């Protein structure tokens, strides 16, 4: 196993896990939790477990993300914030 790939994957996973717990917007939390699953897929492939990696890719990345997104839509947290300073908000409402 290449140790450099392992260290990069591990650091990506830990940073994404920090974002899951400490990020403000739940959009960011959703994206970060899917990123944790992507890092898990890489780790399972490195640990010689292709079956588990495929399961995590299908269930953890896709299905759980869809379930979380549906829940966010149902509890009124599915809002796209226009936080970019470059944008002109006044002309956006049509």
């Amino acid at each position: 196993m290449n140790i450099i790939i392992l260290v990069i994957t591990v650091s990506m996973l830990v940073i994404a896990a920090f974002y899951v717990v400490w990020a403000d917007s739940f959009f960011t939390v959703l994206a970060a939790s899917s990123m944790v699953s992507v890092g898990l897929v890489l780790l399972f492939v490195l640990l010689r477990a292709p079956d588990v990696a495929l399961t995590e890719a299908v269930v953890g990345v896709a299905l759980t993300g869809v379930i979380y997104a549906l829940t966010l839509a149902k509890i009124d947290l599915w809002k796209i914030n226009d936080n970019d300073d470059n944008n002109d908000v006044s002309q956006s409402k049509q």
Partner: protein
Amino acid sequence: MQLIGDIFFLSGTIFLFLGALGLIRMPDVYNRIQAGTKAVTLGSILTLMGIFFYFPQWWGHLCLIILFLLFTNPVSSSALARAFYRNGISVWTKTK
């Protein structure tokens, strides 16, 4: 034979890196979608062609993967852009 594959890998990773850079550096959502779709599609296809020069017996799988990439990536990016437009995210108009 493997040298050609290495050249494909290098150009593919350059395009993937440029796509990732564009995701960070572009000014608004629509430009970011464009950078994250076009460059990443080309980079993935070049990387898959590099894999073909290493393992020529996998040509069927690789052709299928390239076909699916060419089909699904534009659809997903158009769905994203449509969702952002309907939610009222405005287009970047300032040019410095």
